[in-house]
Protein backbone atom coordinates (compact mmCIF):
# COMPACT_ATOMS: atom_id res chain seq x y z
CA UNK A 1 0.00 0.00 0.00
CA UNK A 2 1.25 3.42 -1.00
CA UNK A 3 2.15 5.65 1.81
CA UNK A 4 0.06 8.78 2.11
CA UNK A 5 2.14 11.88 1.37
CA UNK A 6 1.82 14.51 4.03
CA UNK A 7 0.36 17.87 2.88
CA UNK A 8 3.00 20.37 1.96
CA UNK A 9 2.94 23.37 4.18
CA UNK A 10 2.02 26.25 1.86
CA UNK A 11 2.01 29.10 4.32
CA UNK A 12 5.40 30.34 3.12
CA UNK A 13 4.39 30.73 -0.55
CA UNK A 14 2.75 34.00 0.35
CA UNK A 15 6.05 35.26 1.74
CA UNK A 16 7.90 34.17 -1.36
CA UNK A 17 5.35 35.90 -3.57
CA UNK A 18 5.67 39.04 -1.44
CA UNK A 19 9.41 39.01 -1.95
CA UNK A 20 8.93 38.75 -5.71
CA UNK A 21 6.35 41.51 -5.61
CA UNK A 22 8.72 43.81 -3.73
CA UNK A 23 11.46 43.06 -6.24
CA UNK A 24 9.25 44.09 -9.16
CA UNK A 25 8.04 47.17 -7.34
CA UNK A 26 11.62 48.33 -6.88
CA UNK A 27 13.03 47.61 -10.30
CA UNK A 28 10.24 48.72 -12.59
CA UNK A 29 8.58 51.99 -13.41
CA UNK A 30 4.94 52.62 -13.99
CA UNK A 31 4.09 53.03 -17.65
CA UNK A 32 3.12 56.63 -17.98
CA UNK A 33 4.90 58.13 -20.89
CA UNK A 34 3.25 61.09 -22.53
CA UNK A 35 4.46 63.54 -25.07
CA UNK A 36 3.93 65.52 -28.23
CA UNK A 37 4.48 63.45 -31.32
CA UNK A 38 6.22 65.03 -34.27
CA UNK A 39 7.71 64.07 -37.58
CA UNK A 40 10.94 65.70 -38.59
CA UNK A 41 11.43 66.67 -42.22
CA UNK A 42 14.05 64.53 -43.98
CA UNK A 43 17.47 66.04 -44.51
CA UNK A 44 17.63 67.71 -47.92
CA UNK A 45 19.78 65.87 -50.40
CA UNK A 46 22.90 67.97 -51.09
CA UNK A 47 23.06 66.80 -54.71
CA UNK A 48 19.54 67.77 -55.38
CA UNK A 49 18.98 71.18 -56.82
CA UNK A 50 17.11 73.43 -54.53
CA UNK A 51 13.81 73.86 -56.20
CA UNK A 52 12.14 77.08 -55.49
CA UNK A 53 9.17 75.88 -53.61
CA UNK A 54 6.71 78.61 -54.24
CA UNK A 55 4.39 78.69 -51.33
CA UNK A 56 1.99 81.52 -51.61
CA UNK A 57 2.69 84.06 -48.95
CA UNK A 58 -0.87 84.07 -47.71
CA UNK A 59 -0.66 80.34 -47.03
CA UNK A 60 2.11 80.52 -44.49
CA UNK A 61 2.28 81.89 -41.01
CA UNK A 62 5.66 82.19 -39.38
CA UNK A 63 5.76 81.74 -35.64
CA UNK A 64 9.06 82.85 -34.19
CA UNK A 65 10.31 82.50 -30.66
CA UNK A 66 13.35 84.54 -29.73
CA UNK A 67 15.96 83.96 -27.08
CA UNK A 68 13.90 85.90 -24.54
CA UNK A 69 10.94 83.57 -25.19
CA UNK A 70 8.91 86.30 -26.88
CA UNK A 71 6.62 85.19 -29.65
CA UNK A 72 6.07 86.73 -33.04
CA UNK A 73 3.21 85.29 -35.06
CA UNK A 74 2.90 86.61 -38.58
CA UNK A 75 3.63 90.28 -38.18
CA UNK A 76 2.78 91.05 -34.61
CA UNK A 77 4.23 90.13 -31.26
CA UNK A 78 1.69 88.30 -29.16
CA UNK A 79 1.40 86.37 -25.94
CA UNK A 80 1.18 82.56 -25.78
CA UNK A 81 -2.43 82.80 -24.63
CA UNK A 82 -3.43 84.59 -27.83
CA UNK A 83 -1.58 82.25 -30.12
CA UNK A 84 -4.23 79.54 -30.27
CA UNK A 85 -6.99 81.87 -31.47
CA UNK A 86 -4.68 83.41 -34.01
CA UNK A 87 -3.78 80.02 -35.43
CA UNK A 88 -7.39 78.92 -35.46
CA UNK A 89 -8.41 82.00 -37.36
CA UNK A 90 -5.52 81.50 -39.75
CA UNK A 91 -6.34 77.87 -40.46
CA UNK A 92 -10.10 78.13 -40.68
CA UNK A 93 -10.33 81.49 -42.48
CA UNK A 94 -14.05 81.78 -41.84
CA UNK A 95 -14.60 85.00 -43.81
CA UNK A 96 -12.49 83.94 -46.82
CA UNK A 97 -10.14 86.84 -46.24
CA UNK A 98 -7.72 87.22 -49.18
CA UNK A 99 -4.83 87.66 -46.72
CA UNK A 100 -5.48 84.33 -45.00
CA UNK A 101 -4.78 80.92 -46.57
CA UNK A 102 -6.70 79.78 -49.59
CA UNK A 103 -8.76 76.64 -49.58
CA UNK A 104 -8.52 73.84 -52.03
CA UNK A 105 -11.60 71.76 -52.69
CA UNK A 106 -10.31 68.22 -52.27
CA UNK A 107 -11.92 64.90 -52.66
CA UNK A 108 -11.90 63.06 -49.36
CA UNK A 109 -12.10 59.31 -49.43
CA UNK A 110 -15.04 57.98 -47.45
CA UNK A 111 -16.49 61.40 -46.75
CA UNK A 112 -20.27 61.49 -47.20
CA UNK A 113 -20.30 64.82 -49.03
CA UNK A 114 -17.39 63.84 -51.27
CA UNK A 115 -15.41 67.06 -51.24
CA UNK A 116 -14.34 69.54 -48.61
CA UNK A 117 -12.47 72.85 -48.92
CA UNK A 118 -9.20 71.98 -47.19
CA UNK A 119 -7.12 74.87 -45.96
CA UNK A 120 -3.67 75.10 -47.49
CA UNK A 121 -2.28 76.92 -44.49
CA UNK A 122 1.12 75.93 -43.15
CA UNK A 123 2.51 76.94 -39.79
CA UNK A 124 6.22 77.49 -39.84
CA UNK A 125 7.88 77.41 -36.46
CA UNK A 126 11.23 79.06 -35.96
CA UNK A 127 13.18 79.17 -32.78
CA UNK A 128 16.46 80.51 -31.58
CA UNK A 129 19.28 78.62 -29.92
CA UNK A 130 18.63 80.58 -26.77
CA UNK A 131 14.93 79.80 -26.58
CA UNK A 132 14.05 77.85 -23.47
CA UNK A 133 12.65 74.38 -24.02
CA UNK A 134 9.67 75.18 -21.85
CA UNK A 135 8.59 78.08 -24.06
CA UNK A 136 9.13 75.99 -27.15
CA UNK A 137 6.91 73.18 -25.86
CA UNK A 138 4.31 75.71 -24.74
CA UNK A 139 4.13 77.07 -28.28
CA UNK A 140 4.06 73.58 -29.82
CA UNK A 141 1.27 72.75 -27.42
CA UNK A 142 -0.78 75.79 -28.44
CA UNK A 143 -0.37 74.89 -32.11
CA UNK A 144 -1.55 71.34 -31.52
CA UNK A 145 -4.39 72.63 -29.39
CA UNK A 146 -5.56 74.93 -32.18
CA UNK A 147 -5.60 72.07 -34.68
CA UNK A 148 -7.30 69.74 -32.20
CA UNK A 149 -10.04 72.26 -31.50
CA UNK A 150 -10.65 72.74 -35.21
CA UNK A 151 -10.88 68.98 -35.60
CA UNK A 152 -13.32 68.78 -32.71
CA UNK A 153 -15.45 71.52 -34.27
CA UNK A 154 -15.47 69.74 -37.59
CA UNK A 155 -16.30 66.33 -36.16
CA UNK A 156 -19.11 67.65 -33.95
CA UNK A 157 -20.59 69.31 -37.02
CA UNK A 158 -20.26 66.23 -39.20
CA UNK A 159 -20.59 63.29 -36.86
CA UNK A 160 -22.06 64.85 -33.74
CA UNK A 161 -19.20 63.53 -31.64
CA UNK A 162 -15.81 64.70 -30.51
CA UNK A 163 -12.80 63.71 -32.55
CA UNK A 164 -11.42 61.41 -29.89
CA UNK A 165 -14.68 59.46 -29.74
CA UNK A 166 -14.82 58.71 -33.46
CA UNK A 167 -13.76 55.39 -34.92
CA UNK A 168 -10.59 54.91 -36.95
CA UNK A 169 -12.07 55.61 -40.40
CA UNK A 170 -13.91 58.71 -39.29
CA UNK A 171 -10.78 60.03 -37.61
CA UNK A 172 -8.94 59.63 -40.86
CA UNK A 173 -11.58 61.67 -42.69
CA UNK A 174 -11.28 64.42 -40.09
CA UNK A 175 -7.51 64.31 -40.33
CA UNK A 176 -7.73 64.69 -44.11
CA UNK A 177 -10.14 67.60 -43.84
CA UNK A 178 -8.24 69.42 -41.11
CA UNK A 179 -4.56 68.61 -41.64
CA UNK A 180 -1.85 69.45 -39.15
CA UNK A 181 0.81 71.20 -41.16
CA UNK A 182 3.51 72.34 -38.81
CA UNK A 183 6.93 72.75 -40.30
CA UNK A 184 9.99 73.26 -38.20
CA UNK A 185 12.31 75.53 -40.11
CA UNK A 186 16.07 75.14 -40.34
CA UNK A 187 17.55 76.45 -37.12
CA UNK A 188 18.97 79.91 -37.01
CA UNK A 189 21.41 81.39 -34.59
CA UNK A 190 20.66 85.03 -34.11
CA UNK A 191 20.48 85.59 -30.41
CA UNK A 192 23.33 85.57 -27.98
CA UNK A 193 24.60 82.11 -27.29
CA UNK A 194 24.32 80.99 -23.74
Amino acid at each position, binding site marked *: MAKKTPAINSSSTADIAFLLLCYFLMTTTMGSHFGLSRRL*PPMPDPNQKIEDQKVNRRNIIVVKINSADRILAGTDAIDVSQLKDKIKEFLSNPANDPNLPEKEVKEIEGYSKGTYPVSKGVISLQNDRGTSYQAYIAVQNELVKAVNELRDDFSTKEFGKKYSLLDEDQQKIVRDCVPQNISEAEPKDVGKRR
Partner: protein
Amino acid sequence: MSRFKKGDKKEMPGITSSSLSDIVFMLLFFFMVTTQMRDTEQKVKITTPEASEVVKLERKDLNAYINIGSPTLQYQQAYGTDARIQLNDSFRTTDDIRDFIAAERDSKSEADRQLMTVSIKADQDVRMGIVTDVKQELRRCSALKIMYSARKPAK
Protein backbone atom coordinates in the same frame (compact mmCIF):
# COMPACT_ATOMS: atom_id res chain seq x y z
CA MET B 1 -32.85 26.11 25.85
CA SER B 2 -29.94 23.89 25.96
CA ARG B 3 -30.04 23.81 22.20
CA PHE B 4 -28.17 27.10 22.04
CA LYS B 5 -25.73 26.41 24.79
CA LYS B 6 -24.31 23.19 23.67
CA GLY B 7 -20.95 22.09 24.84
CA ASP B 8 -18.32 24.24 26.43
CA LYS B 9 -16.13 27.00 24.96
CA LYS B 10 -15.90 26.69 21.24
CA GLU B 11 -12.51 27.09 19.66
CA MET B 12 -12.08 29.78 16.98
CA PRO B 13 -11.34 28.14 13.67
CA GLY B 14 -8.00 29.20 12.24
CA ILE B 15 -8.21 31.53 9.26
CA THR B 16 -7.02 29.73 6.19
CA SER B 17 -4.07 31.55 4.68
CA SER B 18 -3.89 29.38 1.59
CA SER B 19 -5.65 32.00 -0.58
CA LEU B 20 -3.29 34.70 0.60
CA SER B 21 -0.61 33.55 -1.77
CA ASP B 22 -3.06 33.63 -4.66
CA ILE B 23 -3.95 37.21 -3.88
CA VAL B 24 -0.31 38.21 -3.69
CA PHE B 25 0.42 36.42 -6.95
CA MET B 26 -2.38 38.35 -8.58
CA LEU B 27 -0.83 41.61 -7.36
CA LEU B 28 2.50 40.43 -8.64
CA PHE B 29 1.18 39.73 -12.11
CA PHE B 30 -0.59 43.08 -12.17
CA PHE B 31 2.68 44.87 -11.50
CA MET B 32 4.60 42.72 -13.92
CA VAL B 33 2.21 43.58 -16.73
CA THR B 34 1.74 47.29 -16.08
CA THR B 35 5.30 48.30 -15.37
CA GLN B 36 8.46 48.24 -17.35
CA MET B 37 12.02 47.56 -16.32
CA ARG B 38 13.98 50.57 -15.26
CA ASP B 39 16.90 50.04 -17.57
CA THR B 40 18.94 53.17 -17.16
CA GLU B 41 20.07 55.19 -14.27
CA GLN B 42 19.06 58.81 -14.53
CA LYS B 43 22.22 60.87 -14.56
CA VAL B 44 20.67 64.14 -15.55
CA LYS B 45 17.98 66.04 -13.74
CA ILE B 46 14.86 66.19 -15.87
CA THR B 47 11.62 67.96 -15.16
CA THR B 48 9.64 67.67 -18.34
CA PRO B 49 7.61 70.71 -19.36
CA GLU B 50 3.85 70.72 -19.06
CA ALA B 51 1.62 70.38 -22.09
CA SER B 52 -2.10 69.83 -22.17
CA GLU B 53 -2.34 68.19 -25.60
CA VAL B 54 -0.10 65.24 -24.89
CA VAL B 55 -0.80 61.83 -26.31
CA LYS B 56 0.08 58.52 -24.76
CA LEU B 57 2.93 56.64 -26.25
CA GLU B 58 2.02 53.27 -27.64
CA ARG B 59 4.48 50.42 -27.92
CA LYS B 60 7.04 51.37 -25.36
CA ASP B 61 9.40 48.71 -26.61
CA LEU B 62 9.88 50.65 -29.85
CA ASN B 63 11.32 53.61 -28.09
CA ALA B 64 14.76 55.10 -27.83
CA TYR B 65 15.33 57.71 -25.19
CA ILE B 66 17.57 60.72 -25.39
CA ASN B 67 17.86 62.52 -22.09
CA ILE B 68 18.95 66.14 -21.98
CA GLY B 69 19.46 68.11 -18.82
CA SER B 70 22.00 69.29 -16.31
CA PRO B 71 23.85 66.52 -14.47
CA THR B 72 22.61 65.51 -11.05
CA LEU B 73 24.49 66.61 -7.95
CA GLN B 74 26.83 63.64 -7.76
CA TYR B 75 28.04 64.15 -11.33
CA GLN B 76 28.32 67.92 -11.20
CA GLN B 77 31.89 67.72 -9.92
CA ALA B 78 32.98 65.90 -13.01
CA TYR B 79 30.70 67.29 -15.66
CA GLY B 80 29.64 70.74 -14.48
CA THR B 81 26.12 72.09 -14.51
CA ASP B 82 25.76 72.73 -18.21
CA ALA B 83 23.09 70.76 -20.03
CA ARG B 84 24.39 67.40 -21.23
CA ILE B 85 23.06 64.56 -23.32
CA GLN B 86 22.67 61.17 -21.71
CA LEU B 87 22.36 58.11 -23.91
CA ASN B 88 21.80 54.82 -22.16
CA ASP B 89 24.03 55.06 -19.14
CA SER B 90 26.61 57.66 -19.93
CA PHE B 91 27.13 61.25 -20.90
CA ARG B 92 27.60 61.66 -24.62
CA THR B 93 27.84 64.32 -27.26
CA THR B 94 25.77 64.82 -30.38
CA ASP B 95 28.36 62.90 -32.42
CA ASP B 96 27.48 59.69 -30.58
CA ILE B 97 23.82 59.88 -31.49
CA ARG B 98 24.44 58.26 -34.86
CA ASP B 99 25.88 55.13 -33.26
CA PHE B 100 23.22 55.14 -30.61
CA ILE B 101 20.41 55.24 -33.19
CA ALA B 102 22.08 52.53 -35.23
CA ALA B 103 22.38 50.31 -32.17
CA GLU B 104 18.77 50.93 -31.22
CA ARG B 105 17.64 50.14 -34.74
CA ASP B 106 19.53 46.87 -34.71
CA SER B 107 17.90 45.80 -31.49
CA LYS B 108 14.42 46.07 -32.99
CA SER B 109 12.89 43.48 -35.23
CA GLU B 110 12.85 44.06 -38.98
CA ALA B 111 9.17 44.94 -39.15
CA ASP B 112 9.28 47.36 -36.25
CA ARG B 113 12.20 49.44 -37.41
CA GLN B 114 10.04 51.86 -39.32
CA LEU B 115 7.95 52.48 -36.26
CA MET B 116 10.81 53.34 -33.96
CA THR B 117 10.21 56.56 -32.09
CA VAL B 118 12.93 58.64 -30.53
CA SER B 119 11.71 60.21 -27.36
CA ILE B 120 13.46 63.42 -26.44
CA LYS B 121 13.31 63.87 -22.71
CA ALA B 122 14.60 67.29 -21.99
CA ASP B 123 14.50 69.42 -18.90
CA GLN B 124 12.28 72.45 -19.14
CA ASP B 125 15.17 74.80 -18.45
CA VAL B 126 17.52 73.68 -21.19
CA ARG B 127 18.08 75.97 -24.12
CA MET B 128 16.84 75.00 -27.55
CA GLY B 129 20.36 75.08 -28.97
CA ILE B 130 21.26 71.61 -27.70
CA VAL B 131 17.83 70.24 -28.61
CA THR B 132 18.19 71.63 -32.11
CA ASP B 133 21.59 69.96 -32.46
CA VAL B 134 20.04 66.66 -31.45
CA LYS B 135 17.17 67.13 -33.88
CA GLN B 136 19.52 67.93 -36.74
CA GLU B 137 21.58 64.85 -35.96
CA LEU B 138 18.42 62.73 -35.88
CA ARG B 139 17.44 64.09 -39.26
CA ARG B 140 20.84 63.12 -40.59
CA CYS B 141 20.32 59.57 -39.31
CA SER B 142 16.80 59.69 -40.76
CA ALA B 143 15.20 58.85 -37.45
CA LEU B 144 12.31 61.13 -38.18
CA LYS B 145 9.67 59.99 -35.76
CA ILE B 146 10.26 61.88 -32.58
CA MET B 147 8.35 62.72 -29.49
CA TYR B 148 8.85 65.59 -27.10
CA SER B 149 8.31 64.12 -23.71
CA ALA B 150 5.92 66.19 -21.63
CA ARG B 151 3.59 65.72 -18.73
CA LYS B 152 -0.01 66.56 -18.23
CA PRO B 153 -0.58 69.67 -16.17
CA ALA B 154 -1.92 69.02 -12.70
CA LYS B 155 -5.51 70.05 -12.49
